[in-house]
Protein backbone atom coordinates (compact mmCIF):
# COMPACT_ATOMS: atom_id res chain seq x y z
CA UNK A 1 0.00 0.00 0.00
CA UNK A 2 2.93 2.26 0.85
CA UNK A 3 4.68 1.31 -2.39
CA UNK A 4 1.85 1.10 -4.91
CA UNK A 5 -1.08 3.06 -3.48
CA UNK A 6 -3.30 0.04 -2.94
CA UNK A 7 -6.33 0.99 -0.83
CA UNK A 8 -8.60 -0.67 1.70
CA UNK A 9 -11.38 -0.40 -0.92
CA UNK A 10 -9.33 -2.55 -3.31
CA UNK A 11 -9.07 -5.19 -0.60
CA UNK A 12 -12.77 -4.80 0.21
CA UNK A 13 -13.76 -5.47 -3.39
CA UNK A 14 -11.99 -8.84 -3.19
CA UNK A 15 -14.02 -9.77 -0.10
CA UNK A 16 -17.26 -8.53 -1.71
CA UNK A 17 -16.69 -10.51 -4.94
CA UNK A 18 -16.00 -13.76 -3.08
CA UNK A 19 -19.00 -13.21 -0.82
CA UNK A 20 -21.19 -12.73 -3.87
CA UNK A 21 -20.00 -16.14 -5.08
CA UNK A 22 -20.61 -17.72 -1.67
CA UNK A 23 -24.16 -16.37 -1.63
CA UNK A 24 -24.88 -18.74 -4.56
CA UNK A 25 -23.19 -21.72 -2.88
CA UNK A 26 -25.37 -23.86 -0.54
CA UNK A 27 -22.21 -25.31 1.09
CA UNK A 28 -20.87 -21.88 2.00
CA UNK A 29 -20.82 -20.80 5.66
CA UNK A 30 -21.70 -17.29 4.42
CA UNK A 31 -24.41 -18.46 2.01
CA UNK A 32 -27.11 -16.25 3.51
CA UNK A 33 -24.99 -13.26 4.46
CA UNK A 34 -24.48 -10.71 1.70
CA UNK A 35 -21.62 -8.22 2.06
CA UNK A 36 -21.38 -4.70 0.68
CA UNK A 37 -18.27 -2.58 0.31
CA UNK A 38 -19.76 -0.20 2.90
CA UNK A 39 -20.13 -3.05 5.41
CA UNK A 40 -16.55 -4.04 4.71
CA UNK A 41 -15.34 -0.49 5.29
CA UNK A 42 -17.27 -0.26 8.56
CA UNK A 43 -16.09 -3.61 9.92
CA UNK A 44 -13.70 -3.47 12.85
CA UNK A 45 -9.97 -3.25 12.28
CA UNK A 46 -8.00 -6.40 13.16
CA UNK A 47 -4.44 -5.61 12.02
CA UNK A 48 -4.26 -2.53 9.82
CA UNK A 49 -5.13 -2.65 6.90
CA UNK A 50 -6.99 -5.91 7.46
CA UNK A 51 -10.50 -5.42 8.75
CA UNK A 52 -12.72 -8.26 9.95
CA UNK A 53 -13.91 -9.09 6.43
CA UNK A 54 -10.36 -9.14 5.06
CA UNK A 55 -9.63 -12.17 7.23
CA UNK A 56 -10.75 -15.74 6.54
CA UNK A 57 -13.13 -17.57 8.84
CA UNK A 58 -12.49 -20.31 11.35
CA UNK A 59 -14.81 -23.26 10.99
CA UNK A 60 -15.02 -27.03 11.16
CA UNK A 61 -15.57 -29.07 8.05
CA UNK A 62 -14.10 -31.74 5.83
CA UNK A 63 -13.30 -32.31 2.21
CA UNK A 64 -11.31 -34.84 0.22
CA UNK A 65 -9.80 -35.29 -3.21
CA UNK A 66 -9.36 -38.61 -5.00
CA UNK A 67 -6.40 -38.75 -7.39
CA UNK A 68 -6.03 -41.74 -9.67
CA UNK A 69 -4.45 -42.92 -12.92
CA UNK A 70 -5.48 -41.42 -16.22
CA UNK A 71 -7.07 -44.73 -17.30
CA UNK A 72 -9.15 -45.08 -14.15
CA UNK A 73 -10.10 -41.41 -14.28
CA UNK A 74 -11.38 -41.92 -17.81
CA UNK A 75 -13.63 -44.78 -16.67
CA UNK A 76 -14.92 -42.78 -13.72
CA UNK A 77 -15.50 -39.70 -15.83
CA UNK A 78 -17.49 -41.76 -18.33
CA UNK A 79 -19.58 -43.38 -15.57
CA UNK A 80 -20.30 -40.01 -13.96
CA UNK A 81 -20.71 -38.27 -17.34
CA UNK A 82 -18.25 -35.69 -16.21
CA UNK A 83 -15.13 -34.12 -17.63
CA UNK A 84 -11.85 -35.74 -16.64
CA UNK A 85 -9.69 -33.31 -14.68
CA UNK A 86 -5.98 -33.55 -15.43
CA UNK A 87 -3.28 -32.22 -13.13
CA UNK A 88 -1.22 -30.46 -15.81
CA UNK A 89 1.56 -29.27 -13.51
CA UNK A 90 2.31 -28.76 -9.83
CA UNK A 91 4.97 -26.69 -8.06
CA UNK A 92 5.99 -25.94 -4.53
CA UNK A 93 8.71 -23.83 -3.00
CA UNK A 94 9.83 -20.50 -1.63
CA UNK A 95 12.37 -17.92 -2.76
CA UNK A 96 15.86 -17.76 -1.26
CA UNK A 97 15.98 -16.21 2.19
CA UNK A 98 12.26 -16.75 2.70
CA UNK A 99 11.96 -19.33 5.52
CA UNK A 100 8.48 -18.50 6.79
CA UNK A 101 8.21 -15.48 4.55
CA UNK A 102 6.81 -12.07 5.31
CA UNK A 103 4.72 -13.49 8.16
CA UNK A 104 7.68 -14.19 10.41
CA UNK A 105 10.89 -13.39 8.57
CA UNK A 106 11.81 -9.73 8.66
CA UNK A 107 14.89 -10.37 6.51
CA UNK A 108 13.46 -11.56 3.22
CA UNK A 109 14.95 -9.55 0.34
CA UNK A 110 13.55 -6.04 -0.13
CA UNK A 111 12.61 -6.71 -3.79
CA UNK A 112 10.14 -9.45 -2.80
CA UNK A 113 9.00 -8.07 0.57
CA UNK A 114 5.80 -6.52 -0.80
CA UNK A 115 4.90 -9.59 -2.88
CA UNK A 116 3.30 -12.94 -2.16
CA UNK A 117 6.73 -14.54 -2.53
CA UNK A 118 5.31 -16.89 -5.17
CA UNK A 119 6.48 -15.25 -8.42
CA UNK A 120 9.44 -17.58 -9.07
CA UNK A 121 7.27 -20.59 -8.29
CA UNK A 122 4.53 -19.27 -10.60
CA UNK A 123 7.02 -18.90 -13.46
CA UNK A 124 8.09 -22.51 -12.99
CA UNK A 125 4.43 -23.56 -13.05
CA UNK A 126 3.75 -21.78 -16.36
CA UNK A 127 6.91 -23.28 -17.86
CA UNK A 128 6.19 -26.81 -16.64
CA UNK A 129 2.61 -26.67 -17.94
CA UNK A 130 3.47 -24.81 -21.15
CA UNK A 131 0.59 -22.47 -20.33
CA UNK A 132 0.38 -18.74 -19.62
CA UNK A 133 -1.85 -16.56 -17.44
CA UNK A 134 -4.12 -15.74 -20.38
CA UNK A 135 -4.90 -19.46 -20.81
CA UNK A 136 -6.55 -19.59 -17.37
CA UNK A 137 -10.35 -19.53 -17.49
CA UNK A 138 -11.01 -19.62 -13.75
CA UNK A 139 -8.80 -19.32 -10.65
CA UNK A 140 -9.02 -20.52 -7.05
CA UNK A 141 -6.55 -18.38 -5.13
CA UNK A 142 -5.74 -19.06 -1.49
CA UNK A 143 -7.36 -16.28 0.49
CA UNK A 144 -6.42 -16.34 4.15
CA UNK A 145 -6.43 -12.55 3.77
CA UNK A 146 -7.64 -10.34 0.93
CA UNK A 147 -4.19 -8.80 0.50
CA UNK A 148 -2.57 -12.12 -0.27
CA UNK A 149 -4.99 -12.59 -3.20
CA UNK A 150 -3.92 -9.25 -4.64
CA UNK A 151 -0.24 -10.11 -4.31
CA UNK A 152 -0.69 -13.54 -5.89
CA UNK A 153 -2.57 -12.04 -8.85
CA UNK A 154 0.60 -10.02 -9.45
CA UNK A 155 2.97 -12.92 -8.67
CA UNK A 156 1.19 -15.19 -11.18
CA UNK A 157 1.30 -12.52 -13.88
CA UNK A 158 -2.42 -11.77 -14.26
CA UNK A 159 -1.43 -8.10 -13.98
CA UNK A 160 1.77 -6.13 -13.54
CA UNK A 161 3.41 -5.63 -10.15
CA UNK A 162 1.63 -2.79 -8.36
CA UNK A 163 -1.42 -2.96 -10.65
CA UNK A 164 -3.41 -5.43 -8.58
CA UNK A 165 -5.69 -2.65 -7.32
CA UNK A 166 -6.65 -1.58 -10.87
CA UNK A 167 -7.14 -5.23 -11.84
CA UNK A 168 -9.59 -5.68 -8.97
CA UNK A 169 -11.33 -2.38 -9.81
CA UNK A 170 -12.00 -3.77 -13.31
CA UNK A 171 -14.28 -6.42 -11.79
CA UNK A 172 -11.94 -9.16 -12.99
CA UNK A 173 -12.64 -11.50 -10.08
CA UNK A 174 -16.43 -11.73 -10.57
CA UNK A 175 -17.85 -14.98 -11.97
CA UNK A 176 -20.36 -13.14 -14.16
CA UNK A 177 -18.31 -11.35 -16.76
CA UNK A 178 -14.97 -10.91 -14.98
CA UNK A 179 -11.80 -11.53 -16.98
CA UNK A 180 -10.53 -13.94 -14.29
CA UNK A 181 -13.42 -15.41 -12.27
CA UNK A 182 -11.78 -16.19 -8.94
CA UNK A 183 -12.83 -18.21 -5.89
CA UNK A 184 -16.12 -19.15 -7.46
CA UNK A 185 -17.16 -21.03 -4.30
CA UNK A 186 -16.46 -18.07 -2.02
CA UNK A 187 -13.01 -19.27 -0.96
CA UNK A 188 -11.64 -19.22 2.57
CA UNK A 189 -13.10 -15.78 3.10
CA UNK A 190 -16.70 -16.85 2.51
CA UNK A 191 -17.17 -20.54 1.66
CA UNK A 192 -15.18 -22.26 4.43
CA UNK A 193 -11.71 -22.26 5.84
CA UNK A 194 -10.60 -25.74 4.80
CA UNK A 195 -6.95 -24.70 4.51
CA UNK A 196 -7.26 -24.49 0.74
CA UNK A 197 -8.41 -28.01 -0.04
CA UNK A 198 -11.85 -26.60 -0.85
CA UNK A 199 -10.08 -24.53 -3.53
CA UNK A 200 -8.89 -27.77 -5.14
CA UNK A 201 -12.42 -29.19 -5.04
CA UNK A 202 -13.85 -26.02 -6.53
CA UNK A 203 -11.17 -26.22 -9.22
CA UNK A 204 -12.50 -29.64 -10.22
CA UNK A 205 -16.12 -28.47 -9.95
CA UNK A 206 -15.45 -25.48 -12.17
CA UNK A 207 -14.04 -27.79 -14.88
CA UNK A 208 -16.92 -30.27 -14.46
CA UNK A 209 -19.35 -27.40 -14.97
CA UNK A 210 -20.71 -28.06 -11.47
CA UNK A 211 -19.71 -24.82 -9.77
CA UNK A 212 -22.47 -22.67 -8.29
CA UNK A 213 -20.82 -19.85 -10.23
CA UNK A 214 -20.14 -21.65 -13.51
CA UNK A 215 -17.75 -20.16 -16.02
CA UNK A 216 -18.80 -21.10 -19.52
CA UNK A 217 -16.46 -23.47 -21.38
CA UNK A 218 -13.88 -23.31 -18.58
CA UNK A 219 -10.98 -25.60 -19.56
CA UNK A 220 -8.05 -24.43 -17.42
CA UNK A 221 -8.12 -23.65 -13.70
CA UNK A 222 -5.30 -22.38 -11.50
CA UNK A 223 -5.36 -23.37 -7.81
CA UNK A 224 -2.85 -21.79 -5.45
CA UNK A 225 -1.79 -22.24 -1.88
CA UNK A 226 -0.90 -19.49 0.59
CA UNK A 227 1.10 -16.35 -0.12
CA UNK A 228 3.56 -15.05 2.47
CA UNK A 229 4.77 -18.54 3.42
CA UNK A 230 6.39 -21.38 1.45
CA UNK A 231 3.69 -22.26 -1.04
CA UNK A 232 2.45 -24.48 -3.86
CA UNK A 233 0.14 -24.35 -6.86
CA UNK A 234 -1.48 -26.60 -9.45
CA UNK A 235 -2.87 -26.13 -12.93
CA UNK A 236 -5.90 -28.26 -13.79
CA UNK A 237 -7.32 -28.93 -17.25
CA UNK A 238 -10.70 -30.40 -18.04
CA UNK A 239 -11.01 -32.98 -20.82
Amino acid sequence: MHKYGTTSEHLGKIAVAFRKHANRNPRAVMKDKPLTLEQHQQSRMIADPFRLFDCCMENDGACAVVITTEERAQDLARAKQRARVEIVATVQGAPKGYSFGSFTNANIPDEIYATGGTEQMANRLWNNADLKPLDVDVAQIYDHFTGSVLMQLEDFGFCQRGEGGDFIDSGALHWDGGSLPTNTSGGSLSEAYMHGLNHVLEGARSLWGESCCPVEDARVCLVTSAAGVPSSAILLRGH
Partner: protein
Amino acid sequence: MNTQAQRWFPNSMPAPLVDAHTHPWWQACTEHRLTAQHCKQCHHAHIPPAPICSECNSSELELVTLNGRGILYSYTAVHQAVSPEQTLPFIIAVVELDVGGTACRNSVRLMTNIVDAEPAALRIGDQVRVIWETISEYVSIPRFMLVKQGE
Protein backbone atom coordinates in the same frame (compact mmCIF):
# COMPACT_ATOMS: atom_id res chain seq x y z
CA MET B 1 14.36 7.91 33.94
CA ASN B 2 14.40 4.39 35.26
CA THR B 3 14.04 2.39 32.06
CA GLN B 4 14.20 -0.86 34.05
CA ALA B 5 10.71 -0.26 35.34
CA GLN B 6 9.09 0.61 32.02
CA ARG B 7 6.52 -1.87 30.85
CA TRP B 8 4.33 -1.76 27.76
CA PHE B 9 3.05 -5.32 27.54
CA PRO B 10 1.47 -7.45 30.31
CA ASN B 11 3.18 -10.54 31.75
CA SER B 12 0.44 -12.66 30.21
CA MET B 13 1.92 -12.08 26.72
CA PRO B 14 3.71 -15.12 25.29
CA ALA B 15 7.36 -15.29 26.37
CA PRO B 16 10.14 -15.56 23.76
CA LEU B 17 10.85 -19.13 22.64
CA VAL B 18 14.57 -19.60 23.17
CA ASP B 19 16.62 -22.43 21.67
CA ALA B 20 20.29 -23.40 21.69
CA HIS B 21 21.10 -21.13 18.76
CA THR B 22 19.19 -18.07 19.94
CA HIS B 23 20.06 -18.34 23.64
CA PRO B 24 23.23 -16.16 23.38
CA TRP B 25 21.21 -13.47 21.57
CA TRP B 26 18.59 -13.40 24.35
CA GLN B 27 21.37 -13.53 26.95
CA ALA B 28 22.80 -10.30 25.43
CA CYS B 29 19.30 -8.82 25.65
CA THR B 30 19.29 -9.36 29.41
CA GLU B 31 22.40 -7.12 29.42
CA HIS B 32 20.49 -4.67 27.20
CA ARG B 33 22.81 -5.30 24.28
CA LEU B 34 21.14 -5.57 20.86
CA THR B 35 23.22 -7.92 18.74
CA ALA B 36 23.32 -9.46 15.27
CA GLN B 37 24.99 -12.62 14.13
CA HIS B 38 28.07 -11.77 12.03
CA CYS B 39 29.78 -14.28 9.75
CA LYS B 40 33.55 -14.00 10.15
CA GLN B 41 34.04 -15.48 6.68
CA CYS B 42 31.76 -13.38 4.46
CA HIS B 43 30.63 -10.64 6.90
CA HIS B 44 26.95 -11.35 6.34
CA ALA B 45 24.76 -10.17 9.21
CA HIS B 46 21.74 -12.21 10.27
CA ILE B 47 18.95 -12.31 12.85
CA PRO B 48 17.88 -14.69 14.30
CA PRO B 49 21.17 -16.49 15.01
CA ALA B 50 21.52 -19.73 13.04
CA PRO B 51 23.99 -22.64 13.22
CA ILE B 52 25.57 -21.72 9.85
CA CYS B 53 25.76 -18.63 7.66
CA SER B 54 22.86 -18.53 5.21
CA GLU B 55 25.14 -16.98 2.55
CA CYS B 56 28.40 -18.99 2.69
CA ASN B 57 27.57 -21.93 5.02
CA SER B 58 30.43 -21.04 7.36
CA SER B 59 30.02 -21.92 11.01
CA GLU B 60 32.50 -19.24 12.10
CA LEU B 61 29.90 -16.94 13.54
CA GLU B 62 29.85 -14.39 16.35
CA LEU B 63 27.42 -11.95 17.88
CA VAL B 64 28.30 -8.29 17.41
CA THR B 65 26.72 -5.50 19.43
CA LEU B 66 24.78 -2.91 17.43
CA ASN B 67 24.20 0.71 18.35
CA GLY B 68 20.46 0.19 18.81
CA ARG B 69 19.44 2.65 16.11
CA GLY B 70 17.34 1.83 13.11
CA ILE B 71 14.82 2.83 10.46
CA LEU B 72 11.14 1.89 10.42
CA TYR B 73 10.88 -0.53 7.47
CA SER B 74 7.24 -1.56 7.85
CA TYR B 75 4.57 -1.69 10.54
CA THR B 76 0.98 -2.44 11.40
CA ALA B 77 -1.33 -1.38 14.20
CA VAL B 78 -3.01 -4.42 15.75
CA HIS B 79 -6.47 -3.93 17.22
CA GLN B 80 -7.03 -7.54 18.28
CA ALA B 81 -5.67 -8.42 21.74
CA VAL B 82 -3.29 -11.33 22.22
CA SER B 83 -3.79 -11.00 25.98
CA PRO B 84 -6.94 -9.54 27.55
CA GLU B 85 -4.84 -7.19 29.71
CA GLN B 86 -3.23 -5.57 26.73
CA THR B 87 -3.47 -1.91 25.70
CA LEU B 88 -4.86 -1.58 22.15
CA PRO B 89 -3.90 -0.88 19.50
CA PHE B 90 -0.31 -2.06 19.68
CA ILE B 91 2.26 -1.72 16.92
CA ILE B 92 4.16 -4.57 15.30
CA ALA B 93 7.05 -3.26 13.25
CA VAL B 94 9.98 -4.37 11.16
CA VAL B 95 13.02 -2.22 11.94
CA GLU B 96 16.06 -2.05 9.69
CA LEU B 97 18.95 -1.98 12.16
CA ASP B 98 22.00 0.24 11.78
CA VAL B 99 25.13 -1.96 11.60
CA GLY B 100 27.49 1.05 11.60
CA GLY B 101 30.69 0.42 13.58
CA THR B 102 30.62 -3.35 12.93
CA ALA B 103 32.21 -5.43 10.17
CA CYS B 104 28.77 -6.48 8.88
CA ARG B 105 28.31 -5.90 5.15
CA ASN B 106 24.51 -5.72 5.20
CA SER B 107 21.90 -4.20 7.43
CA VAL B 108 19.61 -6.60 9.19
CA ARG B 109 15.94 -6.31 10.11
CA LEU B 110 14.19 -7.22 13.33
CA MET B 111 10.49 -7.79 13.96
CA THR B 112 9.62 -5.83 17.08
CA ASN B 113 7.17 -3.32 18.56
CA ILE B 114 7.12 0.45 18.45
CA VAL B 115 6.10 1.79 21.86
CA ASP B 116 5.06 5.23 23.13
CA ALA B 117 3.74 6.24 19.70
CA GLU B 118 0.34 6.67 18.08
CA PRO B 119 0.04 4.61 14.88
CA ALA B 120 -0.99 7.72 12.94
CA ALA B 121 2.31 9.39 13.90
CA LEU B 122 4.41 6.69 12.23
CA ARG B 123 5.91 6.91 8.75
CA ILE B 124 7.96 4.28 6.95
CA GLY B 125 11.54 5.53 7.06
CA ASP B 126 11.23 7.10 10.53
CA GLN B 127 14.31 6.89 12.76
CA VAL B 128 13.88 4.69 15.79
CA ARG B 129 16.00 3.50 18.72
CA VAL B 130 15.87 0.50 20.98
CA ILE B 131 14.31 0.66 24.42
CA TRP B 132 14.35 -2.36 26.71
CA GLU B 133 11.39 -3.95 28.39
CA THR B 134 12.68 -6.02 31.29
CA ILE B 135 10.30 -8.88 31.94
CA SER B 136 12.42 -10.68 34.55
CA GLU B 137 16.08 -11.10 35.44
CA TYR B 138 16.22 -13.68 32.63
CA VAL B 139 14.23 -11.95 29.91
CA SER B 140 14.50 -8.50 28.38
CA ILE B 141 12.78 -7.70 25.10
CA PRO B 142 13.96 -5.04 22.66
CA ARG B 143 11.16 -2.62 21.72
CA PHE B 144 11.71 0.55 19.72
CA MET B 145 10.62 4.16 20.00
CA LEU B 146 10.71 7.08 17.61
CA VAL B 147 13.87 9.19 17.78
CA LYS B 148 12.86 12.70 18.84
CA GLN B 149 14.31 15.67 17.00
CA GLY B 150 17.82 16.53 18.18
CA GLU B 151 18.21 13.14 19.87
